[in-house]
């Protein structure tokens, strides 16, 4: 009986308000730069990430612990070990790097076929929109083969144009993923 009461109390007042997100993507896409921009609001020239960076950020009064993983090819194997313990995935693309879009597409397909990654919302930042030859959001969605995912009634995948240098689109993206996480949690608790 006491246990039941604690459950109800927790659900009403002590709702868990910390999410964990993971940021992945090819090397030199701008993962660490986005995180530094969100965390410190400044643009820092970053060297390649070795291992993982973690930062706590706040979006819509919710604390988010973000794991920023390295994007080098041999380091991509560790991404999958994070999927089971996080609420959302952020994938960062270099929109100006047209040569490696297909490499990024392969990684995103791996992500969408992963059993654990399927359960959580996936936000794709089409980053570096400040570059003159950058691929725009809709075109990028098409190239990555994500049209069917994005056009679902309640999509769990979103392609968001962004630029960490110009501070464009970052907050919108983070707000979307937070909203989706909250919605998914509510749906699951109703079931």
């Amino acid at each position, binding site marked *: 009986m006491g246990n039941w009461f604690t459950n109800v109390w927790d659900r009403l007042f002590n709702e868990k308000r910390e999410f964990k997100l993971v940021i992945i993507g090819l*090397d*030199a896409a701008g993962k660490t730069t986005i995180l530094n921009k969100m965390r*410190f609001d400044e643009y820092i*020239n*970053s*060297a*390649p990430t*070795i291992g993982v960076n973690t930062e706590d950020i706040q979006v819509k009064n919710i604390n988010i612990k973000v794991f920023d993983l*390295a994007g*080098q*090819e*041999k*380091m991509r194997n560790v991404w999958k070990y994070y999927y089971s313990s996080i609420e959302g995935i952020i994938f960062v693309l*270099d929109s*100006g*790097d047209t*040569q*490696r879009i297909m490499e990024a597409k392969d990684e995103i397909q791996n992500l969408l076929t992963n059993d654990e990654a399927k359960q959580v919302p996936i936000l794709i930042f089409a980053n*570096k929109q400040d*570059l003159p*030859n950058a691929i725009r959001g809709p075109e990028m969605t098409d190239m990555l083969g994500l049209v069917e995912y994005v056009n679902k009634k309640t999509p769990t995948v979103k392609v968001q144009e962004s630029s960490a240098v110009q501070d464009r689109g970052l907050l919108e993206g983070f707000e979307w993923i937070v909203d989706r996480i909250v919605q998914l949690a509510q749906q699951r608790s109703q079931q």
Partner: protein
Amino acid sequence: MDKKIYDKTDQFFGSYTSSESNNRCFDCKSAAPQWASITHGILICFVCTSEHRQLGTTISQVRSINLDIWTEKHIAMMKVGGNQQFKEFLEKYNLETEKPKIKYMTKAANFYRRKLASMATNTVFSEDDPDYDDGRLMTDGSSVPTRSPQDAANTQDQIEEELKDIDVQMMDNQNNGSEQQTKEGHQSSSTANQYFSAFKSKAGSLFDKMASSNVIQKASTSAKEMYQKAGTVAKETGTKVKTKFDESGVTNVASQTAGKIATGGKFVGGYIVDKAKVAKNAVGEKIDNNPKLSSASQAAKEKVGVIGNAISGMFGKFKSQKRDQPLPYEEIQQQNNIGSDSTQNSSVNNSNNKEQEFEMYDDKDNQPNAKEDDQNKIRI
């Protein structure tokens, strides 16, 4: 063929870096680079990767020798490239010593990238090298910012001025962060500052004596660059410490700063001694033939020894610094605090804390494990 993975990467880079030019970072000349810019076919160090990554992947694509998987296409780019080759190409346009932001954005560098790409794929490349003036233009059409001839003549004055700037920066940094920093971090930064200024005066007199030889002048310029880097690193870490303290009050960060400054100093020292050795070998024959130069070289040798001793002494003292005498920052702090009550109160609290820490520290010194603790602190 393009996508085929090259399976002998280790052997390839083993022999690739065996030549002297490829075993140095193309930008900063530090030893054993582990990263490559495949669009230029050069090897660079971890620190310089950030400059390259900022240029964008269309200009410089950075890959790690160890952490990335290399395809045959990438290896082909490295095979036709090489640090020495690109250096010689840039020397034709007098761009070799420019900053990365400038030298990789010129038309000459753009031409070299296209040429390398076609060489790697064995396609015909019929364009001629751009002429001197055209090659020195930036890709957007503007011209490379020139250095005035006066500056080139007064390199020595420049060095002196820049060294002064660094001193001022470090003092500013110290003053700004004084209230937030803990005892330990503070102490280390001020001692490091003392030794930097002592080192500066010694280095200045050394530069005076050695100015006659071109080779040695080059060595001194690179030493100056290293000194500058150490200064900026110290400043950056200082500001980082400040922000961290504002937010969380984590005390470990201060000892990190100390470690970083210490390693920075060590690096500078080692680098200068290395450079002086290289320069000495290069001009060794000249010096032996010329009596004037040989006496000068003896003086230089002595000075290098003095600097080496000063630096090793610096780390020795750094560990076993006695806290009897008031240090410069404490005087500064006292001066700053006069006039406002609130800050005086805080300074009283601080000094109490300091005394406690002194006692703790003295106790530690008496313990048999004190040495190990000190070493760990510096490593952090």
